[in-house]
């Protein structure tokens, strides 16, 4: 298998679910240089990827490689230096418009969670519809409670984020994103600090949510099993600057159960991804050592 060749598509093109028409992201030749007049750090270099509407797209790469920069550019938190990003054909950012406008069509679930500690879970979930003015406060709260109950959080809606487990908090945060009916969910290593058992519950809950909503998911991780278990496509990116190195298509049928993780197909996919990732991890490690020296 020619693993090191860039842009090597593996597997057959993936058939998309018919109802998934929204949330296609197209990233074309995006480059991001931090502080062009100063230290000049290139975080993303000429990175391109196409994400179909309703696809679960996993981004795997070494830590600090610029994956989050890419996510921040889509979300509108950071500008890009060149290239363009489109959502359903519409320009988010590109020439003449370096920074995308933040919006409820792209909801971010943050690495360490960003539920507002001063609002209960239900109040957190109701926040979006209230500030957008699309629902009255009581209606938004009612919908929030309903959606929390759907996610198995019916009992803890009146608790503050500090009073619930990290797993519950993260699930509530995904509910808070979904109530805005986004086209894309942007997840930045949301399950990073969790133990394996909690993580597996999180995965099942996310898959269940995905099967229900078919929302496009852009998911950053460096957990290979997570990437393959959840994803339709796994994009392996290079160590800084971030570029697409290889894309692996995961054609395990949905709905997926935890049992697929012990299948031969799963093991082979892991092997394939691992080889590419390991090489980049080594590069990142060596670069890190040089920076320190």
């Amino acid at each position, binding site marked *: 298998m020619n693993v090191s060749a860039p842009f090597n598509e593996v597997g057959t093109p993936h058939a998309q679910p018919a109802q998934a028409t929204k949330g296609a992201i197209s990233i074309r030749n995006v480059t991001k240089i931090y502080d062009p007049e100063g230290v000049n750090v290139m975080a993303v270099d000429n990175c391109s990827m196409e994400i179909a509407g309703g696809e679960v797209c996993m981004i795997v790469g070494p830590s600090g490689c610029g994956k989050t920069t890419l996510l921040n550019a889509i979300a509108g*938190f950071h500008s890009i230096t060149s290239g363009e990003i489109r959502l359903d054909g519409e320009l988010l950012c590109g020439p003449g418009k370096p920074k995308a406008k933040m919006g409820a069509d792209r909801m971010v679930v943050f690495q360490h969670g960003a539920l*507002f500690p*001063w609002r209960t879970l239900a109040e957190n979930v109701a926040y979006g519809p209230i*500030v957008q003015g699309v629902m009255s406060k009581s209606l938004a709260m009612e919908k929030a409670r309903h959606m929390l109950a759907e996610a198995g959080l019916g009992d803890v809606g009146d608790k503050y984020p500090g009073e619930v487990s990290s797993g519950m908090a993260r699930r509530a945060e995904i509910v808070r994103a979904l109530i805005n009916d986004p086209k894309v969910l942007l997840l930045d290593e949301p399950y990073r600090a969790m133990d394996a058992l909690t993580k597996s519950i999180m995965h099942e809950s996310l898959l269940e949510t995905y099967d229900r909503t078919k929302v496009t998911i852009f998911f950053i991780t460096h957990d290979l099993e997570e990437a393959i278990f959840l994803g339709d496509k796994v994009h392996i990116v290079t160590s800084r600057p971030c570029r697409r190195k290889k894309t692996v298509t995961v054609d395990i049928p949905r709905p997926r159960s935890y049992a697929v993780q012990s299948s031969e197909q799963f093991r082979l996919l892991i092997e394939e991804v691992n080889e590419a990732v390991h090489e980049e991890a080594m590069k990142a490690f060596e670069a890190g050592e040089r920076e320190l020296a």
Partner: protein
Amino acid sequence: MTDVAQTSGTYTLPRRRSKLEKLIQNVSFWRGVTAIAVFLGMWEVGSRIDEWFGEAYTVPFVGLIPPPSAVFLAWLEIAPSAGYWMSWVESFKRVLAGFIVAMIVGIPFGLALAVNKYFRALFFPPFEILRPIPPLAWVPASLIFWPTNEMSIAFVTFLGAFFTVVINVLGGARTIDIRYLRAAQSMGANQWDLFSKIILPGTLPSIFTGAAVGMGITWEVVLAAEMISGGGTQGGGGLGFFIWNSYMGGSLEQIIVGMISIGIAGYLSSSTIRAVGEWFMPWKRMF
């Protein structure tokens, strides 16, 4: 039938206890009581050793001050007098006036410094130059430019709390996690939503920290200002003047009565702030 814990037989839920019952059964509470008792006992013995063994055995420091029993007797003597309680009232009035004005002016000022860069560029430098000046250094000047003693005391008290409140509010508002702001903006929050629903609640803990520290400084400043201005013809007594007066009258016991009164007054003030803080920030309550 509905109460599972009662019918299961093997296990019954503990009975709900009253606050007083909880306090009495609380080990930490009794540790605190013991610590105070031991402290008082050592003080009593330390200050009486010279009575029992002669001047040569005077314990340094503690030997020179009256024992707690004598202080308590002195307190019993002055407790019925209205003048003593008026000192409490006077000092409390000054502390509250200075503190409340400092909060009313300081919180919006600190928030404005935090959210508006033009405001910050304009007002932060002079603020930072005035901030290191100790409130007490303002006493002579304020005695000159305020028409009454009372107003100059209130002004100096205000300064004591103001700078602390502002610097805490500013620090708190500036260190709000950017993820909260980004999340809120993604969900469609406008500038006012960001301010009222994210920055303000996110700054509340710092506001109460500033209030607690500011309250402590206010008490320090009030006492010193009362001693310096002497209460005099206009100012009225206050606990600071009470201590000063006791010193002039040579009553060591009364000086200590005054000191302990201040300690208790300060404790009451900060407990009040804590209680208000808990009421304002239910998400901070510990279980």
